[in-house]
């Protein structure tokens, strides 16, 4: 039943990994900034911002995909501006898939980092300031290293969410083999084709393996970061 992986299946895996990696890395700075704002600052509209960040978690993904299409389509206000200013086209491109995935993974990323930031003893940052470290140095040498467990956890969740993203992606960038057909989209396509069961099953196994690998890598990273901070020999 399994047979060997075909080039088109491999292409879907490769594309999925690329989209997930780019979406996770690109959303990290924004995710950290949002988490920092929500964890540390009091400002009007904080509750609203918190709710907006969490929207992708509760909205139907197809809604996100459609909104992205309206905003970032080649005729959309943001899409047009991006194309004219940077020559960047998102609609029906893998970059658009990465944007959709980033948005869907953002709440998970922000939640994990925020929890980690809130657990930091802020007097450590004061101590660093009395030793002469300015704000940016405190951020780089205290805040970020101490929130690494949350950063790694958030990155894993965002990466895994991206690997599994379906609704927003197919709505925004469609299902184009080699360009926007990620693993879930490929599986969906094969299930719609007569005789595609074996291929669908092979891709499902691959999806399970990929997710497992991501989980394990992240677990190792988090444990290492924790050991560094807590000094445990676990």
């Amino acid at each position: 039943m399994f047979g060997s992986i075909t080039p088109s299946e491999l292409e879907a895996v490769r594309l999925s990994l690329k989209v997930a990696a780019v979406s996770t890395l690109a959303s990290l700075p924004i995710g950290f900034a949002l988490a920092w704002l929500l964890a540390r600052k009091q400002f009007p509209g904080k509750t609203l911002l918190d709710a907006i960040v969490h929207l992708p978690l509760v909205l139907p993904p197809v809604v996100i995909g459609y909104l992205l299409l309206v905003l970032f389509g080649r005729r959309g206000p943001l899409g047009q501006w991006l194309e004219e200013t940077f020559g960047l086209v998102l609609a029906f491109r893998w970059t658009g898939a990465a944007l959709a995935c980033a948005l869907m993974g953002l709440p998970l990323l922000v939640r994990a980092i925020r929890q980690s930031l809130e657990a930091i003893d802020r007097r450590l940052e004061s101590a660093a300031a009395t030793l002469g470290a300015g704000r940016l140095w405190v951020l780089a040498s205290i805040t970020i290293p101490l929130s690494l467990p949350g950063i790694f956890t958030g990155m894993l969740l965002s990466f895994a969410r991206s690997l599994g993203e379906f609704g927003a992606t197919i709505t925004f960038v469609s299902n184009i083999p080699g360009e926007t057909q990620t693993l879930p989209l490929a599986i969906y396509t094969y299930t719609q084709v007569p005789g595609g069961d074996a291929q669908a099953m092979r891709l499902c196994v691959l999806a399970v393996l990929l997710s497992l690998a991501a989980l394990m890598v992240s677990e190792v990273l988090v444990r290492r970061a924790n050991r560094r901070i807590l000094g445990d020999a676990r």
Partner: protein
Amino acid sequence: MRVEIDVEKGLGDFRLKAAFSCDAAVTALFGRSGCGKSTVLNLVAGLLKPERGRIAVGDRVLFDSTMGTDIAPEKRRIGYVFQDGLLLPHLSVRQNLTFGRFFTPQAERWADFDRIVALLDLAPLLERRPHHLSGGEKQRVAIGRALLASPRLLLMDEPLASLDAGRRGEILYYIERLRDEVGVPILYVSHEIEEVVRLAGHLVLLSEGGVAATGSVNALMSRMELKPVIGRYEGGAVIEALVVEQDLEMGLARLSFPGGELQVPDLNALRGERLRVRVRARDVSLALSRPADASFLNVLSGTVTAIGAGDGASVDVQLDIGGTPLLARITRKSVAGLGIAPGKPVFALIKAVAVDRHSVGYA
């Protein structure tokens, strides 16, 4: 270096309004918990911002509300040793120690790594992580870390509070060493009078958000009206004295002070050293004539200057021993029985063994 502080700050229901200046090697901020001691330190370090006032260290103004001056904490170059050390958990001891060095301008780096490591005996700890250090070791690293940033003033916020009794003595010894060998002025917050007597020459008494009194430790400790401010500690006068003789055979040292002499157990003090000796009021007895055959080694003649108020069994009696104030805590019954009254000549009797290592500091 002269430190001038004049600040006002409200924190919830609490209001701090404190002004004092100090010039001593160690100045103790002393008072009960909640009197605003730590708040003063945080204001000086720049971790809190006064509503009004002025803070200057030497010729450098750190904060001045009228001029709009407010130097950021990282630019103040004020060392801070926190109660619980606050070592950076993700860095090794060596990295913790060198953290502040990097930020200090080259020309102002007076602290030498090897010297500070030797002073605090940190060499065996350098490659360890903060989580693998004992409480006392953490505090030594915290002191070293603050010093290696080459601060112009060192703030210490009850650095012994989180340690057990055995470790306290150890850290006190290191603080004495740095006071005597490093020469950076220290502002030391404490509510333990033993620490103050051992370390500090100058005392700022805080009470309910204000300065109740400032002055030398010996001048303030014998002032009876300050007793409610100084609080629950075991009251007593502090006498500054010179070691004039060591009796090695009997294990005693003879100290001289204006007004008399004291014999105390030999505390490894050398002849010619100046000591601060705290004599607890309850260790002082009074007699109207010099006892002929009693075990008291110290019999000091003086006069009664004041009798404290008291409705319990005991009262504090203030004495003048040839110019040096001393406090005695005796029963009201004895006051009545002996006819103790201001102006009356008396003898103060002090057991030599009442003075121990915890009640002596090097001046």
